[in-house]
């Protein structure tokens, strides 16, 4: 019986197919149910296999539930297991039918075969039907006291399952206390391990709400329990050892003798064949010695060899998991790994994610003695392997150069990169040379000679182009044809898609102008004209600013664009040390791989109803240049307000006063803006569906007020909406939706998230009175659902607004 692979390609479980087969199955099962003829079990087995295989590929076979239950009266253990699996899968959605299974499961819980008892108990716990928990308590209690360790082991996890279905039932039956008793007394190590896992999870979740639970959780890491577990460590399975070691790493021994005792006891774990045990031990050692600097260093030395072995053995995925940890340690103490740099060389066939980590580590461990070798190796990658790695390695070379070991030679190499004449190499190198010049202006002479030879036509990437333009402006006096190169670039203004490049172009041409006025004047004129006509707000503003600055006073303008600069000594670190310590504390978990502490990626799930005020708090912090949040790009302050609060009329007027030779485009824009304004009165180009409610196109609300209001107001509407498939497709970033909603005069105040989950906060104002609507919108693109919460100053209007909001949302992506 092979699952019918070829016929079932239905990618989504929501599209049931094979209806005919299912009813066939139902018939056949019914016939077999009562039969006691020999060979019945074999035909049952075939049918059960079919059912399970349909279930696996996502066909809904819940309709045969009662037949399956009827057939389950059997002594064949494989049949039983298939039946349990089936019941566990569908009981949740058929609670009434699940009741039918209770009977035979309870009977099996009393079977003389411990195997059957264990299986039945495990399945009973997996039913996950809240109103059946009463039937679970009895068998669980018996199971915990069972004479057979297999049953006790299952029962221990069963308690945890019960806790997740109904915590109160679990506490009422006093199961946690029983678990604790078993933890300390059971002769079987796996039972002990399962009790430990269950108790950790239960107390961990309860700790925030109950003081007693918090005490119990602390008790788990008390000296007697820790010592009891450590003394039995060798009895545990490798997986259970990981659990125990993790627990011990939370224990803080009162004196250093104890620390050494524990480390001596566990040192042999570093030689365990299971990498997970080795990593858990490493974490424990690192945590234990945190306060003892010397010993901590020795621990680093001791764990180096096992870590490097783990890296070089196993699949790339495993080695990636270990490398991430090595990466963390290398970043914390690069000098300790300086002599091991050769282990970090990349192999040709390694996947990108492994190579990238290795490159970062190579960069970090570079010092006076090994820079030459490392840079030679990096140059090899830049020339030889795939493009993303080539880029990364050039960046790595640059980073090493910025650390100022042997800069001279490295600069030479970077300049050699430019001679390779590969677009991506040139692009990366340009960015680096720019950073180098900011730090070591004294190198400008050598660099400029080479940079001057690069034709801007060969540079396409915005970042590289911007870097090149910056250098053209900054070193205009040294580069002969700087003004002409800039002029050429300005001629192509219309084709330049990146605002970043256009911004740099404006600044560069200004700088150039002050150094070589006669040659640049023409270019400056056309740049400013083009800038003023630019559709991008920032570019427009900068052009305007320069224009007025020049009008006001030439020498002031010069001092603004060409101030005396100090060489940059240190480039901003991307992560605060606090965060790094947090990650280190969470060693041996996902945090290390994601390189962020766990609250950043799990909290949203565990906080339940979204802690809104905190999030907005973060938002305002984000504005205050708290790098943490800014880096995360979790929340982006939308530019809505800024754009809207700038009165369009004044803009238009300014444009007119500025320049008589203004290109026609500016006029067009001006007229456009007037038309927009007209539309703002209600005749929107995309008419609002609800004519009853009109919104203010230029609503303004500052984050603090929003936050206050959100806290004060009750939720007036909360509903599920859906997004069209086109909308889902367009929802690559929250910004897309933000722009879309703005057309409907619904403004975004904060947005964040990554596919498939986005979270956005909107606000809107009534057109005629200052009455606000606040919206929290959570979008899941994988389910195409949007969860919307609306709060309103005027609750009576919230229904109308909700309709308007939903219809606006449903149009998303249609344009």
């Amino acid at each position, binding site marked *: 019986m092979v699952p019918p692979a070829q016929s079932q390609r239905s990618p989504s479980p929501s599209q049931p197919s094979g209806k005919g087969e299912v009813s066939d199955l139902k018939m056949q099962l019914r016939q077999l149910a009562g039969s006691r003829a020999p060979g019945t079990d074999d035909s049952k087995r075939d049918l059960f296999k079919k059912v399970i295989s349909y279930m696996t590929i996502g066909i809904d076979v819940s309709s045969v539930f009662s037949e399956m239950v009827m057939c389950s009266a059997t*002594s064949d253990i494989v049949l039983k297991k298939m039946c349990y699996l089936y019941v566990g899968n569908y009981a949740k959605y058929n609670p009434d039918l699940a009741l039918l299974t209770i009977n035979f499961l309870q009977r099996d819980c009393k079977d003389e075969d411990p195997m059957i008892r264990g299986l039945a108990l495990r399945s009973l716990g997996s039913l996950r039907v809240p109103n059946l928990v009463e039937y679970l308590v009895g068998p669980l209690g018996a199971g915990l006291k069972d004479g057979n360790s297999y049953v006790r082991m299952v029962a221990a996890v069963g308690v945890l399952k019960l806790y997740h279905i109904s915590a109160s039932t679990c506490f009422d039956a006093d199961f946690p206390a029983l678990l604790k008793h078993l933890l300390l007394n059971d002769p079987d190590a796996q039972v002990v391990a399962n009790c430990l896992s269950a108790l950790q999870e239960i107390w961990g979740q309860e700790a925030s709400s109950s003081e007693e639970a918090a005490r119990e959780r602390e008790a788990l890491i008390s000296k007697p329990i820790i010592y009891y577990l450590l003394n039995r460590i060798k009895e545990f399975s490798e997986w259970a050892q990981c659990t125990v070691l993790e627990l011990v790493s939370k224990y803080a021994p009162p004196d250093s003798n104890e620390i050494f005792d524990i480390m001596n006891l566990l040192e042999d774990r570093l030689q365990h064949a299971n990498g997970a045990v080795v990593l858990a031990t490493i974490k424990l050692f690192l945590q234990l010695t945190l306060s003892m600097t010397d010993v901590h260093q020795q621990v680093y030395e001791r764990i180096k060899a096992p870590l490097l072995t783990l890296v070089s053995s196993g699949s790339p995925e495993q080695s990636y998991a270990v490398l991430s940890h090595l990466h963390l340690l290398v970043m914390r103490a690069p000098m300790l790994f300086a002599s091991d740099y050769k282990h970090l060389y990349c192999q040709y066939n390694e*996947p990108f994610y492994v190579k990238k980590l290795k490159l970062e580590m190579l960069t970090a461990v570079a010092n006076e003695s090994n820079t030459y070798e490392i840079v030679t*190796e990096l140059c090899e990658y830049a020339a030889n392997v795939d493009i993303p790695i080539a880029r990364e390695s050039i960046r790595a070379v640059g980073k090493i150069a910025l650390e100022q070991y042997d800069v001279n030679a490295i600069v030479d190499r970077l300049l050699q990169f430019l001679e390779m004449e590969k677009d991506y190499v040139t692009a990366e190198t340009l960015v680096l040379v720019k950073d180098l010049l900011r730090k070591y202006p004294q190198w400008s002479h050598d660099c400029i000679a080479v940079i001057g030879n690069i034709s801007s036509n060969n540079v396409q990437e915005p970042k590289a182009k911007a870097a090149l333009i910056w250098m053209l402006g900054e070193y205009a006096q040294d580069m002969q044809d700087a003004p002409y190169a800039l002029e050429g670039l300005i001629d192509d203004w219309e084709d330049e898609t990146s605002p970043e490049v256009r911004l740099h172009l404006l600044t560069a041409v200004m700088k150039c102008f002050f150094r070589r006025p006669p040659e640049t004047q023409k270019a400056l004129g056309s740049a400013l004209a083009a800038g003023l006509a630019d559709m991008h707000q920032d570019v427009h503003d900068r052009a305007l600013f320069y224009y007025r600055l020049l009008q006001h006073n030439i020498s002031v303008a010069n001092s603004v664009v060409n101030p005396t600069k100090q060489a940059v000594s240190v480039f901003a670190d991307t992560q605060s040390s606090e965060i790094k310590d947090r990650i280190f504390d969470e060693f041996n978990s996902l945090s290390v791989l994601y390189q962020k502490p766990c609250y950043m990626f799990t909290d949203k799930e565990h906080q339940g109803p979204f802690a809104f005020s905190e999030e907005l708090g973060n938002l305002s912090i984000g504005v205050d240049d708290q790098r943490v949040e800014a880096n995360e790009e979790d929340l982006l302050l939308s530019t809505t307000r800024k754009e809207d609060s700038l009165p369009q009329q004044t803009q238009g007027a300014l444009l007119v006063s500025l320049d008589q030779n203004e290109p026609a485009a500016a006029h067009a824009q001006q007229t456009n803006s007037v038309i927009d304004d007209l539309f703002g009165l209600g005749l929107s180009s995309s008419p609002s569906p609800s004519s009853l409610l009109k919104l203010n196109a230029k609503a303004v609300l500052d984050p603090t007020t929003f936050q206050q209001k959100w806290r004060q107001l009750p939720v007036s509407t909360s509903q599920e909406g859906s997004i069209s498939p086109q909308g889902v497709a367009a929802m690559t970033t929250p910004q897309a939706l933000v722009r879309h909603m703005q057309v409907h005069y619904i403004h975004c105040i904060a947005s964040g998230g990554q596919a498939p989950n986005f979270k956005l906060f909107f606000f809107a104002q009534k057109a005629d009175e200052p009455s606000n609507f606040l919206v929290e919108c959570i979008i899941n693109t994988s389910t195409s659902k949007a969860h919307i919460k609306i709060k309103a100053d005027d609750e009576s209007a919230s229904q109308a607004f909700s309709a308007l909001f939903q219809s606006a949302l449903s149009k998303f992506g249609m344009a």
Partner: protein
Amino acid sequence: MPVSASAIYFLNLRGDVLINRLYRDDVGGNMVDAFRLHIMQTKELGTCPVRQIGGCSFFYMRISNVYIVIVVSSNANVACAFKFVVEAVNLFKSYFGGAFDEDAIRNNFVLIYELLDEIMDFGYPQNLSPEILKLYITQEGVRSPFSSKPTDKPVPNATLQVTGAVGWRREGLVYKKNEVFLDIVESVNLLMSSKGSVLRCDVTGKILMKCFLSGMPDLKLGLNDKIGLEKEAEIKSRPTKSGKTIELDDVTFHQCVNLTRFNSEKTVSFVPPDGEFELMKYRITEGVNLPFRVLPTIKELGRTRMEVNVKVKSVFGAKMFALGVVIKVPVPKQTAKTSVQVTSGRAKYNASMDCLMWKIRKFPGQTESTLSAEVELISTIAEKKSWTRPPIQMEFQVPMFTASGLRVRFLKVWEKSGYNTVEWVRYITKAGAYEIRC
């Protein structure tokens, strides 16, 4: 918490679900869809084996033509999860008796569900040891041996062993002929610069064992590693015998090895599992004997011609020989025509891999062999980009040779019944990533 997996999925390369086991309710049912949509159907697939989608993290691994995906919603232990997958696959393999691929899964899916049920409960790994699981999960599906029904082979104490202390060996084994097979398998990793200097070189070795021994034997293995020998000399208070000693950088052992005794006495002593297992793994970076030297010269003559010369020297003992030697010499994509001459073996241009594939079935020690080829290229317009030269890669196996020089000095078997055992020891060195830049 070590793993706490919420679900495990097995998918084929098209994204069809082969196995789907939910352990916890904290992730939605559409996780497979999310995986397909955001990982399989995008370029993400090759970029990182750990990905976060929504509130869940996905760990995935490709094994032959199957993806195994673990979904977690908490801050899980990734290394543990991957190790679990690897171990689970080994377990499945030992049940199927061989390959783990889509067909094997389809043919054994009921068994896999049974095993998944046993090896993980509510997301926590349980017992994964094949020796024990095979006691009570049998493909025959008869009632387990400790039921009241009389069966042919009663194993009275199975549940005790399911969770017991010597979890890797059951009692009461009897063999007519007591045999032990020891395989020392080393793979040499090399990265050599075009100028012939060794950039990086190490050996990862493992000792594989096959035991067919009765009862509960105690084994003791002696190697010529430096620490072990010194320790021995110290104990017996006599000078270390002259001869080569090996310095192991790092060793890991199978769980059966008594690590305390290894640390104190530096001897490897253990009660072995029955059948085949990996006794230890080690890594060596110092004093590696490279079995082959490769000297390439590649000249690009203008835009459309290349001259390739590769000389390969075997530097192991003259009485030994290497088998299955394959040398892949890279050539540019736009290769049009090649003419290759070799002094031994056969060489052919392989267009799909862009290389000259040079195969030598048997390569005796202390000899050398050369390949010389002329490569004609299609001239391309405006392609100024010079060819990025991938390294020359090499595969080989050298029996009876260890690149590290490791030797087994003794293997003692002690059992209370005092039977005689036959011990077999083999050595083999294979190429790991053996790369020479050119």
